[in-house]
Structure formats: structure tokens, C-alpha cells
């Protein structure tokens, strides 16, 4: 069994990471999942959260917001609408994200309120996971 697989993290503006990974922990819409080499081909949407990539030399973490992940035979590709290395995330950035999510929640149509409330909650959870409290 292969030890590693190709992992790509791309945002609309640029390719953030492209490396050999041992495992990737993805914040899927219906719960976290860990993809390892030879995982069954899967496509899942993302919720805002922390994406962890384990490589031979350690692990890297990224904050991602919506998008989707494609786990295939050749490797794993995460297409995130916005992604940023965890170390670079600042309080301001997160505040901004949450503010926008809250705004969307306020404007949401009745059938969408659940989804947008979940979005806000996910953002807050991601924040507290990183030790940033959003005010």
C-alpha cells in the first residue's frame, strides 16, 4: 500500500499547497473525515473549519471556508473558496468572516436560515479551535 498520496489545496486565486501527504483531515459538511492513501473515491462539500495535512515531516494546518474536496485514486484535491495557513489567520480576518456570515444569516430566506445559522456556528467553532474568540 502506498505510503503517501498527492495532496493539492487550491483556492480560486492560487494554488496554496501541493505536496505528498500521509493523511488529510477534512472538515466535511457532515462531519470530519480523514483521507489516507487508497481511500475510496469520494466527493464531499466542506464546512468552515480546520484542514490538517500530515506529511512525512510533520503536519500543516489551514483554515478553509466553503468548497469541496475530491478524494480520488491519484490523490486528494481540496478546492476551497477561501483558504489560509492557520498561522496567518488573524483575529481581524476571522472577525470579518464571521461578520459576513452573520450578515448572510440576517438576509437569509426562511428556508435557508438553518444553513446560515450553521455557517455562523461553524465559523465560531473554527475560531475557538484556534484559540481566537470572535467578538
Amino acid at each position, binding site marked *: 500500500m502506498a505510503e503517501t498520496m498527492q495532496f493539492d489545496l487550491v483556492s480560486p486565486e492560487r494554488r496554496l499547497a501541493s505536496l505528498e501527504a500521509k493523511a488529510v483531515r477534512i472538515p466535511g*459538511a457532515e462531519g470530519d*473525515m480523514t483521507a489516507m492513501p487508497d481511500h475510496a473515491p469520494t466527493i464531499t462539500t466542506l464546512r468552515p473549519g480546520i484542514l490538517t495535512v500530515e506529511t512525512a515531516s510533520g503536519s500543516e494546518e489551514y483554515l478553509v471556508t466553503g468548497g469541496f474536496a475530491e478524494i*480520488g485514486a491519484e490523490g486528494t*484535491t481540496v*478546492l476551497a473558496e477561501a483558504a489560509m495557513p492557520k498561522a496567518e489567520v488573524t483575529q481581524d480576518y476571522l472577525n470579518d468572516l464571521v461578520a459576513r456570515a452573520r450578515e448572510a444569516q440576517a438576509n437569509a430566506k426562511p428556508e435557508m436560515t438553518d444553513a446560515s445559522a450553521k455557517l455562523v456556528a461553524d465559523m465560531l467553532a473554527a475560531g475557538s479551535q484556534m484559540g481566537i474568540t470572535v467578538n
Partner: protein
Amino acid sequence: MPSLKDLKNRIESVKSTRKITKAMQMVAAAKLRRAQDAAEAARPYAERFNAVLSGLAASVGESDSAPRLLAGTGKSDVHLLVVMTSERGLCGGFNSSIVKLAKAHIEKLKGQGKTIKVMTVGKKGREQLRREYGDLLMAHVDLTEVKRIGYENAADISRDLLGRFDADEFDVATIFFNRFQSVISQVPTAQQIIPATFEAEEDAGAATLYDYEPDEEAILADLLPRGVATQVFTALLENAASEQGARMSAMDNATRNAGEMIDKLTIQFNRSRQAVITNELIEIISGAEAL
């Protein structure tokens, strides 16, 4: 026959024009590089996205419950044309070629008795379209303040589009932009984005069977709006690169023309100077002979 002084002034003014066009050409060349890099960097995302989306669409597409963004509203009475042009001029036929394509489209749709609405991105296209189709213009996106086009700009435009689609303001949306091919060639392109269309890439057999989480339709409903934003973003980037390319070649031509004009004027200037000298000599000689 212009006087020597006039000619000298003309030459000076053409020379300073040449300096300006030369500078603009260099600036455009630098910006073109950046715009091309940006377009290049955005390509992997757009490609993967479209691949996954078209795979999904193919498997869900036929069912009755397909999302409206994919299946459409069931009619095609109201067309929205999103015309993307530049904010600045002096870029050759860049804006005119997009507007020409859009106008041809408008006339064709009018002939079919459809209702047309136009949304403009970039003020140059708006100015050109206002003359003939002022009553069709319904929205305008101003990117004057934007130095570097980011995904956010595209997301804003697509949010606006989707809002209007949900409010049943139109049935079909098409974007018009210039696809960048090279510095000297940009191809005006019309692309339908709502309902979504995919360039059919038939690699039958190679398609992997994926597990979907949540189910296919939920993913599709989530991804289609993002797909619109991705397409708008790609178009914006292609357009930005094309604009700089068009400006670069336009300014290159202008610089060359100015050079030719300077040469011509200089020859004319030298000739008339020589004529003046010859004239003076004749006067002196005939004066001396008369003595």
C-alpha cells in the same frame, strides 16, 4: 507651406506623444505579465471545479429534481447579457470588439422576440451601449477602484446575478468577454452561465465512480452557485489580461506611427530649411551680380 517654426513645434509635440505611448506600452507590458500570472494561477481551480461539476451534472442532470440553475426556468423569454469591458480606454479595438459581439447578440435575440436586459461591467462598454440600447441597461458594476481583480469581485457579481435569477428577473444569462490568446489576438467570447452549460469532455470509461457526501443533489445545489462565481472570475481574469495585451499592441503601433511621422516631418523640415538657405544664397549672388 508651414513655416520652419511650425514644423519644429509639430516635431516636438509628436516626440512627446511618442514618449507617452512608449511609456504606456511598457506599463501595459508589466501589467500584462501580472494579469497573465493571475489567470494562470486561477486555472487549476477552475479546471478541477468544472470537471467535478460536469461529472455531477451528467449524473443528476436528467432527473426532474435538478436544481434550477442547471435545468433553467423552463423558458427562455428574458435574456440577461453581462457585457464585460475595461474601465479605461486607449486599448485598441478591445472594447469595441466585445460591444460588437454583444450588439449582434442583442439584434439576434430581438429578432426572436425575446426580452433583453443588459448588465455592464466596466464603464467603456456602458458608454458604447448607452447610445443605442440605453433602455435595456439595468445594472452596472464599477471596477474603477479595483487594482487587482480578486475572487471577491467575482463573488459579488455572481451574488447579484443569482439574486436576480431567484427573483425571476431573467431566464438565461450570458457573459461577454475577451478570451486571451496572445498579445496580438484576443477573441470576443459569449458564454452562457445560467442555466449552466458544460463543455462536453467525453472521456467515457475514465470517469471514476465517487461516493458523495451529502448526496449528489445537495452537493450540486451547493456547487452550482460557486460555479457561476468561478466562471465570472475566469472571465474577469481573461478580460484583464486581454485588456493589457490589447493596450500593449495598440501603444506599440502608436509609438511606431509617431516614429514614422517624426521621420517624415524631419525630412520636410530639412527640405524647407534648405530651401530657405538656397533662397538667401540666390538673393546674395544676384545682388552681387547687379553691382
